[in-house]
C-alpha cells in the first residue's frame, strides 16, 4: 500500500476507533475500563512507518478525543502527538515478533502516556483540574492494552497498514 494511502486509511481507522471507544466499547466491554485501541494503532503506525505518520496520527487521534471529552482541547492532542513521535524514533531499530514485543511495547507506550499526561496536566492545567492519572483504572488499561496489542498488530499487518516484514520499515 502506498504511504499516503496507508496514512489516510489509518487516520480513518483511528477516528472510527475513537467513536467506537466512546459508544459501543463503552457499553459492551465487560470491565469498566476501556482499552485505548486508537493509541495502539498510533503507536504501531509510528513505530513501523516513522515519526511523521506517528505524530500526525497521534495529533488527530488526540484532537478527536479532546472534542468529545471534558478535557481541555489540546491536552490529548499533545500527549498523543508526542507518543506518535517517540514511537517513530524506533523505526528500523527494533525486532518485532508477533506477540511478545508488541505487548511489551504497548505496555510501555501506555505507561509513557500516563507520565506525559501527568506532566502536561501539571504544567498547563489550572489548580483543581488535575486528572487522576495513575489510578487503578490506568494500570488496568496498561494491562488490557498490552493484551490486545498483538491482535491489533496482526490486523494492521494483514491489512498492510504497517509493513509486513520482520524488520520495521526495511
Amino acid at each position: 500500500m502506498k504511504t499516503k494511502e496507508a496514512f489516510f486509511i489509518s487516520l480513518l481507522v483511528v477516528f472510527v476507533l475513537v467513536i467506537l471507544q466512546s459508544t459501543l466499547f463503552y457499553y459492551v466491554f465487560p470491565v469498566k475500563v476501556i482499552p485505548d485501541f486508537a493509541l495502539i494503532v498510533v503507536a504501531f503506525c509510528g513505530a513501523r512507518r516513522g515519526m511523521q505518520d506517528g505524530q500526525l496520527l497521534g495529533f488527530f487521534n488526540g484532537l478527536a478525543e479532546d472534542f468529545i471529552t471534558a478535557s481541555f482541547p489540546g491536552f490529548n492532542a499533545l500527549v498523543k502527538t508526542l507518543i506518535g513521535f517517540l514511537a517513530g524514533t524506533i523505526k528500523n531499530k527494533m525486532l518485532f515478533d508477533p506477540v511478545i514485543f508488541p505487548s511489551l511495547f504497548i505496555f510501555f507506550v501506555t505507561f509513557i502516556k500516563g507520565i506525559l499526561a501527568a506532566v502536561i496536566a501539571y504544567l498547563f492545567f489550572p489548580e483543581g483540574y488535575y486528572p487522576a492519572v495513575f489510578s487503578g483504572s490506568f494500570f488496568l488499561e496498561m494491562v488490557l492494552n498490552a493484551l490486545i496489542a498483538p491482535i491489533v498488530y496482526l490486523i494492521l499487518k494483514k491489512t498492510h497498514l504497517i509493513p509486513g516484514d520482520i524488520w520495521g520499515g526495511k
Partner: protein
Amino acid sequence: MFKGISFQKHKKDFITLFVLVSLSIGMLVYTAFSDISFRPKQAGLDFFSLFQRGIVGTGKFFSQTLNSISELRNLKKEYDSLLEDYAEYQQMKQDYDHLAQENSLLKDQLGYMKEEGIAKIPAKVIGGNTGNFFRSMVINQGSNKGIKKDMPVIAYVDGYQSLVGKVMEVSAYSAVVKPITDSSLYVPAVLQKYRYRGLVNGLVMDFVSREASSRIGYGDLVVTSGFNGSYPENIYIGKVKSISSKEYETSLRLEIEPFVDFFRLEYVFVLDQGRSE
C-alpha cells in the same frame, strides 16, 4: 532512544513536531485559562456526536429487534399489572392534589416565598469516556434546547432525582457532561438525616465535622445542599460507603457510593434553574 536520530536527516519530522506541539499548547493554554468557549471544539463535538448518535441508534435498533419477541410475551402481563397500578395512582393523585392545595394554603398563611421552578431538559446519553483520565459523557441536546455550561444534570434512579454531574461544554446539538465521579468536580453536599455539611469531590465527601462521627453510619444518604446555588438542594448523590479520619484532622472523610450507575445511564435531565417548566 534518540541515539542516532540526526536533526538534519529528520528535519521535516522535527518541523512537523514543532508545529503540532505549538498548536496543541496554544489550544491548551487558551482554553485552560480563559472562560471563552473554544469554537473548533464545539464544531468538532457536533461532528463526532453525529456518528455517536448513529452508532447508539443502530445498536439500540438491533437490541430492540432481538428483544421484541420476548418483550411481547411480557407486555400482556405488564399491561394487566399496570391497569391495577393505574387505579391505585388515580386515588394517590386525588390525595396528592388535596395535599398540594393544603400545603399551598399553609405556605400562604406562613408567608413563605414561592419557590422558583426548575425546568428539566431531557437528553439521551450518546457517548462515554474515550480514555481513563477524564470522566465524561456526551448527550444529544445542546444550545438549541437552551442547555448552557455549568447546568446541573440529573437522572431518575428508582424514582429519585440523583445527581449525574454538570455540563462542561455545549455545542449546537450536543453537550459534554462531567460526572460526579470526576475528581475535578466539587459539589456542596449535606448528610440528609443529620444535616452535616461537606464537599463532595470525586465521590469523597470532605470537610464533614468530626462531631458527626458518633452519629453517622454506613448507608446514610448524601444529598446536595444547594449551597452557593450551583446545584439545587436535596438531589441524591449517594450513600456513605466508608468513614475515615486522621487524628490530627478536624474533619471526616466519607467515601460515597453513587446512586447512578454511570455505565448504564441512558437518559438524563439537564436542570435549567432559571426557567420554570
